[in-house]
């Protein structure tokens, strides 16, 4: 008889069966690595104004610039190497996406589980707030918060967290409530074990699967939302362009034939978001018990 297989191994075995999902996961991993190692991989630090030269501005892909190397994807209007700008831009996108997603995850999960555990008016109040926020579109909230708080990474992340924690809260609440009614939880609560231990060791682990699904989708959403805000001019400052701002800066050049300034960052952004969503899709399908027949 073979040794028992761990849930993770089982999960991975099934995940592997979809070539699309595996390809998407590969894309996500490679992009993340490139983003993390951008300072070493990129030929230029696009945020360091002392390394730029205006004479390199708006050159087509393949042009050899004043730095002595070929700009594989061309340069932007400030003379930045587009490949480097995209790598650093993805870095920012991933940083913000992960930061916002993680904080929202913690915040939302805490609220959701607390509501499910405490019940009574605490539950009602918390969930009403969460419900209201769920129906309030993220982009509007983010817009107003960014306008009020000003520009900067911290402010942007705060706005994104405020816009997204509700999804986590809702999900955690739903899963925790379902679990709470089960017998083993009732039994645990009857023992002298403190309520917090029950919540942590029993409720939380069973909420994880749907939370993971929500997390992947929300990370993709954060990235998309940040790009939209940057496009509208409400994101990060001009000298630290994220992918959204690169696209926005480059769009006026589309009509005069200098397409690369906008198109390549656009492709990078879409590839990243689509890959994350595909992985999330697959994970969600696998976790959905009603599809297992």
């Amino acid at each position, binding site marked *: 008889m073979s040794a028992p297989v761990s849930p993770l191994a089982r999960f991975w075995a099934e995940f592997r069966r979809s070539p699309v999902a595996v390809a998407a996961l590969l894309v996500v991993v490679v992009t993340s690595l490139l983003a993390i190692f951008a300072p070493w991989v990129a030929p230029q630090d696009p945020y360091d*104004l*002392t390394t*730029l*030269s*205006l*004479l390199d*501005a708006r050159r087509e892909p393949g042009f050899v610039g004043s730095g002595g190397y070929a700009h594989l994807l061309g340069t932007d*209007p*400030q*003379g930045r190497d587009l490949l480097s700008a995209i790598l650093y831009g993805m870095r920012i996108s991933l940083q913000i996406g992960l930061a916002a997603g993680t904080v929202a995850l913690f915040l939302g999960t805490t609220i959701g589980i607390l509501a499910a555990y405490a019940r009574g008016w605490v539950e009602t109040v918390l969930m009403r707030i969460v419900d209201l926020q769920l129906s309030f579109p993220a982009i509007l909230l983010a817009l107003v918060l960014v306008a009020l708080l000003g520009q900067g990474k911290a402010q942007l992340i705060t706005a994104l967290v405020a816009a997204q924690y509700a999804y986590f809260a809702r999900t955690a609440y739903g899963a925790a409530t379902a679990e709470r009614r089960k017998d083993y939880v009732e039994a645990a609560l009857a023992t002298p074990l403190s309520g917090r231990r029950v919540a942590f060791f029993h409720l939380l682990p069973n909420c994880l699967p749907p939370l993971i699904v929500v997390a992947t989708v929300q990370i993709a959403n954060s990235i998309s939302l940040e790009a939209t805000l940057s496009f509208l*001019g409400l994101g990060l*400052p*001009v*000298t630290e362009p994220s992918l959204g701002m690169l696209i926005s800066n480059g*769009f*006026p*050049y*589309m*009509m*005069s*034939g*200098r397409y690369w300034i906008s198109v390549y960052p656009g492709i990078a952004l879409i590839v990243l978001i689509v890959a994350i969503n595909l992985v999330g899709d697959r994970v969600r399908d696998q976790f959905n018990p009603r599809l297992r027949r």
Partner: protein
Amino acid sequence: MTTFRTPRARRALALILAGLASAAGSAHAQDGTLVMGVRGGPESLDPHYSALGSHAEAAKHIYDTLVWSGDDLQIEPGLATSWEVVDDTTWEFKLREGVKFHDGSDFDAEDVKFSIERIPLVSGPTTTTIYVRRVADVEVIDPLTVRIKTDGPAATLPYDFVRLFIVSSEAAADYSTPETANEGFNGGPAAVGTGPYKLVSWEPKGDLVLERYDEYWRGKGPWAEVIRKEMPNDSSRLAALKAGQVDVINYVSSIDYLALQRDASVEAVVGDSVYVMNLQLDQRDEPPGVRAIDGGALESNPLQDPSVREAIDLAIDRETMVQVVLEGLGKPANQMMPPGFFGSNASIAMPEHDPAKARELLAEAGYPDGFEIDLYCTSDRLPGDGAICQGLGQMLSQVGIRTNVNAISKTVYFPAQGRLEYSVFMNGWGTLTGEASYTLGSLAHSNDPELKLGAYNRVDYANDDVDRLLQEGATELDDDKRRALYEEAMAKTMADKVYISLVQLQTVWAAKANTVTFAPRFDEDTLAFFIQPKN
């Protein structure tokens, strides 16, 4: 599955096909309607509300100014036919006879008095009081003569009146307080002028629809109807022109200009602009946006040191700014006014570009590692403003002055600048009256609210010689002597390098080839009355 054959899908298909058909033939110029695509529109239809160029340009369609500024900003008769100095503090203006407002009432001196007195009451954040700042009192002598008493000799009063719009004292009588003004004008009853077009309708940030006023004193305009569409997005505006939705557009960006030169169906008109971009350096002892290279505070303000300012000037490569950042649509500038204006000094040399010397000067001044500054500018006011700012950031960083570039919306920038929150900033200044007292009087003179000089001097610049020259010039009635005073003042101001002029802009208009013709104006206004159809 039958959904793809629903009536809805069929209708959608029909629509697309119909759209294709009608896109083929839409030419506006032939049927007497001019459709203009403009980058910025008026904030309201009250001409006295805002001094912004886009606001005044729209106002010039419905209202007239007392004095007219021609294409090259030289003054000509407008609603006033002649003017002369009566004594040291009095000007007399003779008004044009037989002019009527759109509602049929006569234009007379009462309307002039009413308009001047109304301005301080209804002026908004970008105030128009600068155009009547020298006026102490207005006296109606007879229906066609008005005497203006000034606070001291005011040689350039007629120049100020090129933006003095005249409204009807009867129609606007009830609409001259901040609460009532915009409603009366935007809604219609007060929006009555003597200009070439009558108001039909207006959508804020949308379309301004006008119809020809046949009794206009200059004559009947070439268009029966004029529609000014506000389209702030450069690419959309150009696309609209190419698609035939509009006949003329303004502010073609330098990016698109290059492509337009290869497109035979569109022709571009390029004109020099009155706007010069100036970098301004804080002279206060404790500037908020300047710090040591490691982020800590500095002992003193490096910008107060003339050799530091010279270093900054040397770090700037004006040629590259014009050729690369503006893609050729501009000229290097060495002073705050375009050449040839009254008070421009032709003997000022064009500053050099020498980054090595800049570094030397900085080291000698005690900043071998440089320092850090926050640079502020607008991103949505003049063509290339944000890009020039970023280019500046690069150039300064490369001599050791680490620059944090902040290109922000003009509506946030100007109030903050007015509150003296910025230390190093750059914006364009347009000498709209065509002569130096407007520019030097607002920027170079020390800030003195009693004398009403230095109102836009936000860097605490004070040079006694310059102050003296400007005060003399304001009261000197002899043209040649006055010109010499201003030229000297300009030379001294530019030598101090607190204001560092960078580039003079050029403006580009575009229209469908062979449809219309017009002369580019220095103040960048696009006026329907002066746009002639080619056939």
